[in-house]
């Protein structure tokens, strides 16, 4: 998958990058520089002021995410593009197991099959079994974060956007997340992500796009990152 991106979000202008299919592009830079803004433009939580975000969709072919219709975006979010942050949108009164299983249901999984896939993933992310039937609303920050990751991993999206999803996880869980990310990459998932943990970023990223190398407000400064695997 090639994702070419020329977007301009405050405080950025003329950012261009390409992410080859099945690779991980990390975005680095100090906090407040606009890493999350770039990710949100790709997911269309933010409106891109100018520029294009080309994504090679299974369903629509080459599509500009900055101008896709809302219905197309909803479809892509359900079927192709995942987004995971450190914050879980908590849904009261749905068990952790079902929160994780739910994204599979539109794909024709039976509830039982979806739950059994969810169990495997919860286990891999070291979530204690006694929590599986609990409500994430009552969980600690770290536990919620793991539920959140499980929910994003379970559908194996074509494109996965990660915004510091491991910020407060213990080392064992981080290793497990790392292993899953590598596995997903091998299976063809393309990823764009920000990790607060440099070590983690280096272990999983094929390319790192360092925003510090771009000067603010400088229209002529176009930095190109091209991935070579």
């Amino acid at each position, binding site marked *: 998958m090639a994702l070419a991106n020329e977007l301009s979000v405050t405080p950025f202008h003329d950012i261009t990058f390409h992410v080859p299919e099945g690779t991980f592009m990390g975005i680095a830079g100090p906090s407040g520089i606009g890493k999350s803004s770039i990710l949100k433009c790709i997911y269309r939580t933010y*409106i891109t002021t100018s520029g294009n975000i080309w994504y090679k969709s299974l*369903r629509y072919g080459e599509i500009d995410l900055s101008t896709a219709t809302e219905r197309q975006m*909803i479809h892509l979010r359900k*079927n192709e593009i995942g987004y995971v942050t450190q914050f879980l949108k908590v849904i009261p009164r749905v068990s952790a197991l079902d929160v994780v299983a739910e994204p599979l249901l539109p794909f024709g999984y039976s509830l039982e099959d979806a739950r059994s896939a969810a169990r495997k993933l919860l286990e891999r992310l070291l979530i204690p079994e006694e929590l599986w039937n609990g409500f994430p609303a009552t969980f600690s920050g770290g536990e919620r974060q793991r539920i959140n990751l499980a929910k994003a991993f379970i559908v194996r999206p074509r494109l996965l956007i990660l915004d510091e999803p491991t910020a407060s996880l213990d080392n064992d869980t981080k290793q497990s997340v790392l292993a899953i990310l590598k596995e997903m990459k091998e299976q063809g998932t393309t990823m764009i992500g920000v990790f607060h943990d440099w070590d983690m970023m280096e272990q999983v990223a094929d390319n790192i796009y360092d925003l510090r190398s771009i000067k603010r407000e400088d229209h002529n400064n176009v930095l190109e990152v091209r991935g070579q695997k």
Partner: protein
Amino acid sequence: MAIEPLQMSKGMTESIEKEIPLVTVKGLSKQFGSGCEYCSTPSHEEKEGNRCKHCGSIWAVRDIDFELYPGEILGVVGESGSGKSTMIRSLFLDEEVTNGSMTVSTYNKGKINIFNASAQQKRYIRNHVMGMVYQNPYLGLRMTFSSSGNIAEKLIAADNFHVGKIRERASELLDKVEIPISRMDEPPKNFSGGMQQRVQISKALANNPPLLLLDEVTTGLDLSVQAKVLDLIRSLQRELNVAMIVVSHDLGVIRMLADRTMVLRQGLVVEKGLTDQILEDPQHPYTQLLVHSLL
């Protein structure tokens, strides 16, 4: 892990390919008052307001267009007086519209403007094609009838006359909205506000309409009760795949339920978009104001 990277199943691709809106609304306008030569058409100017300086008539809804797709939830948000209730009451045919058209793909293949349907057709549409949940349960329920009787009334209106089946369906519906079966023959006036809303929801869904309209359903309820009602709406939507239009002045409600959202101000749609975009990157100054007051 057992799960393979996603491939689209054939059925899914096809259903998206042919995605046709369930509801299409074009040019919906509603004027209150007799109007005069100065206000014969609704102005699209935001600055002008919706009240005619000459005769005092109000364009409560001004030239609204939208589409609603099967199984999706569309949020409509705006402050009090922005025209939300007028819009949704017009859609439910409670209110005679001034202008506009509405078609529903499951009714007459989407070929009839429902606003112009005959009285008999309108009755049919309100019983089979859509259900409505009002902010005020007194508008949607007969408070002194039993709860099961309220549902029976709706089923009978849709030509179901088998007493045993009606009772069975009533208890099934009330069970879905978590009203204890032991209380199904009590009148809603005995119930708390949250329970009344749940009875109203079950009544609105009695004939399995593909479209459910909800006007400020949780406004005025305690926060914990609100959360339960919202949960219920969300789970019913998943289970029954019914499309919904959720109207609320409360962005919190919209955030919890809606995939897409329209922002209404003085009868005009000033912004529409994906709900998370409306909340995190509002484009219109009015939406920005609404969002900031939420924080």
